[in-house]
């Protein structure tokens, strides 16, 4: 009730959803990029994990609400006047945060990506960036059960947090980490080995899939023979998650004992507007395959799938058809540019999907 009145007052008096929103541009004079809906974090340092991977060490504002091991945050930075946001798992333990207010995000430089290499090159020590509250349900809530953690590539990040936190709890634990990489070095090897030495209940298998192949039943039996009795957590590329899930289900592991978290799709290397893919209309729970033969705008695809989004001019001038794109690349037929992969608003009448796209419609 009180908050309703407050909102109405903000709308009436300053035409904004909150009073803070009205003052935001003024506050920004003193605190650049300060925004109402984000928390601020100061970059303490950028640590190289290896050639391709780095960690941002961030001191988070005291108003931030904390997190649980396995959760992620959205960070947003200003790049040439535009706010760009990306989602990263927190790779450090909650314990570190409670002690020192510091969190770490471990990030792989996506070769074709427009953010991850840019962040690395542009961010300076001491710089302020905006982060969201921690989100996500990829959380271990019962350490009494035996766990199997399966990581693929940068999918190791939430597990680093989960493992450190489990060790800190001083509970008797039984965790096996099965960690795949493809062609690149494993991350945090030294650290993980130390932890294994210190703790009886923890074991780790490092697998290089360019030598031993992708995950398969033989692997599971070889590295973790009692996998059927464990709760499995999977984090990595989409294909790997799906394959692993099938394997486990096929071995009669109960569905509720399989937890997973997808990372966003990797950047498309060859940008071609004829790339086919799956278009997901999130709110209406509809998935459509787009063919590579003819290019159709998202609006046309939505309409032929039976949706009726708001439209006007259908030629890119009126901005009536704007929708939130959550993920994926679209090609703007008017400006002839490819979009970023992250979430942003797009005019669907002039946007052609390139590959997989998720849209909030």
């Amino acid at each position: 009730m009180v908050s309703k009145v407050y909102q109405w007052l903000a709308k009436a008096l300053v035409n904004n959803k909150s009073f803070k929103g009205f003052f935001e541009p003024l506050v920004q004079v003193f605190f650049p990029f300060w925004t109402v809906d984000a928390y601020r974090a100061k970059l303490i340092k950028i640590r190289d994990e290896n050639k391709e991977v780095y960690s941002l060490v961030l001191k988070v504002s005291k108003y931030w609400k904390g997190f649980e091991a396995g959760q992620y945050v959205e960070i947003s930075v200003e790049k040439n006047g535009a706010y760009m946001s990306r989602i990263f798992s927190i790779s450090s333990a909650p314990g570190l945060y409670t002690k020192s207010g510091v969190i770490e995000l471990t990030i792989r430089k996506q070769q074709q990506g427009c953010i991850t290499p840019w962040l690395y090159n542009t961010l300076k020590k001491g710089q302020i960036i905006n982060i969201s509250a921690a989100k996500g349900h990829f959380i271990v809530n019962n350490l009494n059960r035996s766990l199997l953690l399966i990581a693929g590539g940068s999918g190791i990040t939430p597990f680093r947090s989960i493992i450190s936190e489990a060790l800190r709890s001083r509970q008797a634990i039984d965790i096996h980490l099965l960690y795949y990489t493809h062609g690149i070095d494993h991350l945090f090897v030294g650290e993980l080995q130390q932890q294994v030495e210190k703790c009886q209940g923890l074991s780790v298998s490092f697998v290089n899939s360019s030598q031993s192949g992708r995950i398969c039943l033989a692997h599971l039996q070889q590295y973790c023979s009692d996998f059927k009795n464990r709760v499995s957590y999977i984090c990595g590329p989409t294909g790997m998650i799906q394959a692993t899930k099938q394997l486990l289900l096929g071995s009669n592991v109960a569905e509720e004992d399989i937890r997973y978290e997808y990372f966003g799709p990797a950047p498309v290397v060859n940008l071609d507007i004829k790339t086919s893919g799956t278009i997901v209309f999130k709110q209406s729970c509809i998935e459509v395959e787009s063919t590579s033969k003819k290019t159709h705008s998202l609006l046309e695809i939505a309409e032929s799938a039976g949706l009726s989004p708001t439209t006007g001019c259908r030629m890119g001038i009126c901005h009536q058809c704007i929708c939130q794109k959550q993920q994926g690349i679209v090609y703007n037929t008017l400006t002839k540019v490819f979009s970023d992969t992250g979430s942003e608003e797009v005019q669907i009448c002039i946007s052609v999907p390139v590959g997989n796209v998720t849209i909030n419609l």
Partner: protein
Amino acid sequence: MINKLSKQQYKQLAIDLDVIRDETSSHIGKRDANYIRRIIRIQRSAEILGRITMVMGFIHPLFWLLGVVSLSLSKILDNMEIGHNVLHGQYDWMNDANINSRHFEWDIACDAGSWKRIHNYEHHTYTNIIGKDRDFGYGLLRLSDDIKWRKKNLWQFITYINLSLFFEWGIAYHEMAAERVFIGQKKNNRSSQVTDAELKSNFFGKATRQIFKDYIFFPLISGPMMLPVIAGNFIANIIRNLWTATIIFCGHFTEDVHTFSEEECKNESRGQWYHRQMLGSSNLSGSRWFHILTGHLSCQIEHHLFPAIPAHRYVDMSIKVMEIAKKYDIPYNTGSFFKQYATVLKRVYRFSFP
């Protein structure tokens, strides 16, 4: 009469104009973000200053006057350079939660959603097509021979003055009038995306909030200055109305602006669409501050050609657009404010009679 171009020329015209657009959009970035944030800061400061100094009128009436001026400035900036342009999506690329066409709401009686439908869509798509562009004369004024003369047109000069004084309410009611929400017979060729009930609740919701702000809340907290504050807010609203109405009329209703019939515009190509935008708009020349206060609608031609480009870039673009107009021998309608405005008044007067 309008000089028609050949099919080939239309094609080339579209290409030439696209080049200007692409050239400019490739430079859009930090500078534009800084620009709009700065204007927003000026507007917010002017509003805060205006509301405070108006109350200080009890110390000296000059404070009150300063308050009125400052608040008018705030409202004009909010509606013109900020609201109009942000709602056009010119700054959507910034991904800023508060500076984008979906969420921005402005300090005017007209609900932003309604305005986007009528203005962004209808007016910008069907510019100056008689019968389709409901902004042409706002259904109140007869500004072309293509519109049937009625007796009420005899006193349309007075209607025009009233419309200007209460322009924000005219705009707010515009869509409901067109959809015949309260009076008149429903037209059957309308395919509105919103129901009458939504139109009504949006209209009354926004109107209530605006009235509450300017005539209830701020006067009440001003204690003994209540009446002067009511008067000051009222005057600021009127000043803004006069200014916006006048500028907008100069953009489409000057003497030499062309109108079009639905027939002419069937299946038009992009080049023809561009051509129509150029013929249907007129510019005003002036200083930098003049342009900003008009929300760069002083560059109405460029705005109609490139509605999604940040407006503060129009002045530079106009030089190239003018060259193109010359190349194809398309009239480029521009002039000083007083010259253009005189022709608007002439037009309103002239078409009062059959």
